[in-house]
């Protein structure tokens, strides 16, 4: 069944700097359950792209398999999308990025997709610091196959059927910090205020940006005893900071009130402005992020916000030292060494 939104929009709706309305960033109507956290994240992506005034066709959206991986259909209808195979979106994103470094790569995955079958590819795309935003819509369960525990389900968390998870979870944020990710954030699908600037900052970050977003599954994991239910998350959330993202194109007028806010300058001059809740939060210190994460875990808190960013991140194209021009634009004259070179090669084999 295909859902199509009516094309008509009120002509008076506001446009962003490049003349696109918010509707230009929307996709097809969602087929996910009403109240699904994933739809809120789709909404945040639409908002972030609209506010960033990105041309929709300059974004490529990629996903694996699962409820979360269906969402790229529901946002950025004018962008090319790729719904690949289970857990293997990172390799598709890597190849796509190698071919054209000029697009923004937005990968969407779920906790099943990333933390189980895709764990290997997740680790390696992170390790290569591919310039992409990697969003995990994390609900701790497999929605499409009706609610089995995923590898991120917390120890002791109760499923809808009443069984208690006997295994330790894989914490994708902790893992990413350990593996050396250059941008690590956690958020909650219900916290659009935090989520939108995080997505904007992640898109501006040159390198791998992880957004682990708790996104409760209303149908299979929103019950009492679940640690990924709306109620549980709302009761245990602890933000590291309230942040705002100011793109380079805007006039940067940030109020630097000593002791209450700080900012991180991105490679392109954009700013991430953090209003501190936690008095000593420094998002450029990996060690403190790891420690604070462990503390939060011990206290049963769900720590959200920008946990770590490396402002000197060196992404894959820089590591490989490829030409500035996208490789997919190079043609015969750039690529083919011609007959004279081949004659020399032949001669070396005589």
């Amino acid at each position, binding site marked *: *069944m*295909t859902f199509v939104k009516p094309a008509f929009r009120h002509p008076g709706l506001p446009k962003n700097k490049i003349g696109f309305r918010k509707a230009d960033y929307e996709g097809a109507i969602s087929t996910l359950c009403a109240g699904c956290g994933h739809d809120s994240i789709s909404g945040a992506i639409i908002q972030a792209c609209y506010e960033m005034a990105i*041309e*929709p*066709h*300059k974004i*490529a959206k990629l996903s694996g398999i699962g409820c979360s991986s269906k969402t*790229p*259909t529901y946002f950025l*209808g*004018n*962008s*090319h*999308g*790729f*719904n*690949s*195979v289970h857990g*293997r979106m*990172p*390799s*598709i994103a*890597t*190849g*796509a*990025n*190698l*071919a*054209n470094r*000029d*697009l923004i790569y937005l990968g969407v995955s779920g906790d099943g997709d990333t933390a189980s079958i895709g764990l*290997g*590819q997740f*680790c*390696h795309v992170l390790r*290569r610091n591919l310039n992409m935003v990697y969003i995990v819509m994390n609900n701790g369960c497999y929605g499409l196959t009706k609610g089995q525990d995923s590898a991120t389900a917390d120890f002791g968390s109760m499923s809808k059927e009443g069984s208690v998870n006997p295994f330790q979870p894989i914490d994708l944020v902790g893992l990413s910090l350990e593996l050396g990710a250059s941008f690590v954030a956690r958020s909650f699908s219900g916290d659009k205020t935090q989520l939108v600037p995080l997505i904007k900052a992640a898109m501006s970050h040159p390198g791998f940006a992880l957004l682990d977003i708790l996104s409760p599954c209303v149908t299979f994991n929103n019950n009492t005893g679940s640690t990924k239910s709306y109620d549980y998350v709302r009761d245990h959330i602890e933000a590291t900071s309230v942040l705002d993202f100011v793109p380079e194109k805007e006039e940067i007028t940030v109020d630097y009130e000593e002791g209450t806010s700080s900012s991180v300058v991105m490679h392109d001059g954009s700013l991430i402005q953090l209003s501190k809740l936690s008095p000593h939060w420094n998002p450029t210190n990996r060690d403190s992020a790891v420690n604070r994460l462990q503390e939060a875990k011990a206290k049963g808190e769900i720590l959200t916000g920008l946990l770590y960013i490396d402002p000197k991140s060196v992404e894959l*194209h820089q590591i*490989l*030292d*490829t*030409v*500035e021009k996208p*490789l*997919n634009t*190079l*043609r*015969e004259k*750039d*690529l*083919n*060494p*011609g*007959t004279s*070179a*081949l*004659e020399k*090669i*032949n001669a070396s*084999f*005589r």
Partner: protein
Amino acid sequence: MMTVSAVNDMVIRFANVNGTGSASANEMFAKAIFRMGIPVSPKNIFPSNIQGLPTWYEVRVSEQGYLGRRDGVDLLVGVNPQSYAKDIASIKEGGYFVYDSTKKLHPDYVRKGIQYVGIPMMQMCMENYDNPRHQQLFKNIVYVGALVALLDIEIEVIQDIIRAQFSKKEKLIPPNFKALDLGYQYARSHFDCPLHIRLERRDNVGDQIMIDGNTATGLGAIYAGATVAAWYPITPSTSVVKAFETYVKKLRVDPETGKKKYAIVQAEDELAAIGMVIGATWNGARAFTATSGPGVSLMSEFLGLAYFAEIPVVLVNVQRGGPSTGMPTRTQQSDLLSSAYASHGDTKHVLLFPSTPAECFDMSVKAFDLADRLQTPVIMMSDLDLGMNSHMSPPLKWDDERKYDLGKVLNAEELEKIEKYGRYLDVDGDGICYRTIPGTHPTKGSFFTRGTSRDEYARYSEDGDVYQRIVDRLSKKWETAKSAVPVPEVYQEGSRSTQGIIFFGTSSYAALEALDLLKQQGIMLDAMRIKAFPFNSTVEDFIEVHEEVFVIEQNRDKQFRSLLVNELEVSPKKLSPILNYDGTPITADTIMQQIMHHLPASVSVVSSNHKSKTL
């Protein structure tokens, strides 16, 4: 005593210890013969280990240009006592055993009917070199020096090769020359040189080169304009990407900025390798990967996605002995079915079968054009024998006027003219639709790529009719592919024979020789060398007009025959298998004997002056 006797027609085998540096000395020996204008075919027969175990290198010399493997060894250089028993047994009656006589040969190894040529190789090295590693390495050059005298090789040719090899380490040239001379002088002063088998300069190699198939394949990828290579190491395919890397570093770096016009990623596994290729080609770059059987198994899920979502993929499968880990350093043609039908559901893929390094180059280039034209995976089916052994080959050729066939890709201007773009609309009726590359147009041409069923406008659909329309169109595309792939080569002399032979890939060397051997027996058979799957219509015609067709292949289960039966719906009874699957390249003798055994007595005997065929 009977003695083998021949000029420019022999098999020389070296029995070495893996890891002792013998490979380069042995290659030097083969190259010297090539440079004397005599056709030569060297083959590594090596174990799957790092060092210490027996390893062999075999050189067939054939003035007539037969480059397949031949049974029977005329001269064996044995420097590995571990394998003496087996090595000595492999020598033809009247053949020679050249060995290290530093230690006296055990009486168990004395065999009547062969001739012993003892050279105190280690002793000479101990006396002339101090460094133990040098003593080991130069032993190899000592036996090459002895062979120069014993077989009458032009010593200047070997010296030139040494000079070229050590041009960047010139101080190594004199000690190499010395080792060469030690062997040479010892042989000259202790034996009647040359032996009854010997070499004589000829002019039979023309402008050919000696190159391995993997290097030619890697070069093909460069000439085809591949910019992304993603791979995971596996024998015997590793050197494809290594060759790509070696040459692309020299040929594809921007001279002004020093930046690379290519990206090579060693992936974490084969799954990621092909995923990267799919991502890159989806995004409009030319990309490839190389692997061998186990890698194809891992890539299968993605191959199905690429087939169904219609994404170009170039995959080089350098086949080795299976199943499972099988014989990783031995050759076979046993991934035919697993490659042709890789992945679940109704999936099939275009296969190319190169026979020579020049064809590896050409087909590597062709694979990219075909993949883009057909928007589907194309798998080049090389094998260890072709990929890792040096072969005499026509030189690699390129036409500077040649343009890449990028297939049906719409640019922004073209999209502008289209009212409603449909990614999976069969506009031209050939089953191939128009694709767009991400980032092409702000509002037109974007679509969603997926492995799930969708309609002509790339919209998700589970409607049975819609699904059937899409998979039927893929069948139509398969029909289109039949006329796009390389056509078979037919070898026919005079009037049509009642029996025919079909072969492909590296079996071709031995098959063509077998045809000549059969002719010497008075039997002339039509032959066809198939270069691609799907089968061109001429394949069906060839089978149709012959009463019986022998299908030569290097696997146990007659996989190529199964493909013919399955795809062309011919009677299996019509196709007689000729097989070899011991991990070594098939020989002409094997083919001839199996065919002779099978032929009815009624096959007419004709006489003809035979002339060797070339690939």
